């Protein structure tokens, strides 16, 4: 059966849900067919995937030095 085409705008609207695997299989299939032929949408997908990867890395926010020790002291001294 032929895949029903999907527009770039519809792809952009669902791209985050696509990454999170939160879309129906039929829509996923249509989006994947679209990515194969649309460089712009593939660029948006790659970019968003990179953003999720970079933000999720955990190294971006360095904890202030001595944070744990000061927290432990506050807990210890709490009434």
């Amino acid at each position, binding site marked *: 059966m032929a895949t029903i085409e999907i527009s770039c705008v519809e792809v*952009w609207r669902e*791209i985050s849900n696509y990454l999170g695997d939160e879309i129906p299989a039929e829509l996923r299939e249509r989006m994947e067919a679209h990515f194969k032929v649309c460089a712009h949408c593939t*660029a948006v997908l790659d970019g968003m995937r990179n953003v999720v990867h*970079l*933000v999720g*890395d955990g190294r971006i926010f360095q904890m202030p030095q001595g944070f744990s020790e000061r927290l432990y002291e506050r807990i210890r001294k*709490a009434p």
Partner: protein
Amino acid sequence: MYFRLKMTLEQTQASANEADLIKRVCDGDREAFYELVRPHERLVYATALSILKNPADAEDAAQEAVLKALSHLNSFRGESKFSTWLVQITYNEAKLKLRKDRPHLYESLDKQQQSEDGDYWPKDFADWRPIPSELLEECEVRKALVNAINALEPIYRQVLILRDLNGLSIRDTMAVLGISVSNVKSRLHRARLLLRDILAPGIDGYWKIERSYSKVRPW
């Protein structure tokens, strides 16, 4: 299947440990409370930072939140995960601090909470090749990322921090922010697209060429 089972077992084990620690704290063991909180320190700090944007203020709010959790631990019923409960307290504590110290910023935050989320279309179509993780070891790159995240409006920054940095589920994010599933999804979607547009000029090689990266776009 094996990994899913392993994860479930690990989660069950972790929540049994958590329940044991909570019981010990309620019986007066202060050390157990530190043990309970320690795995979530970064989560608490990042949540406070996403609202206050200032490391010193975020640390203050994080400490206050942890102490509040200690004094109210008796009221924790285990309906959510301990980490979600702790993040919720931190979120409220950071907002309180913002209202007290910088009321003008709090008002704008409050107003934005009620605003509607319209569609946002990507503005930049630069081709991003996969980014090596080592890139994050470079101080300039981390700085550019933090600047970009801080440039987001609070409603988008908070969802992004909770979901993508702290790894909270959609359900937990809803509970912390008090918004609907569709709002969590649409705000996260917009936050990711905005961040992508802000970072795109640097990602395609700019960070490698220049010593300092300051081309963070204003949108």
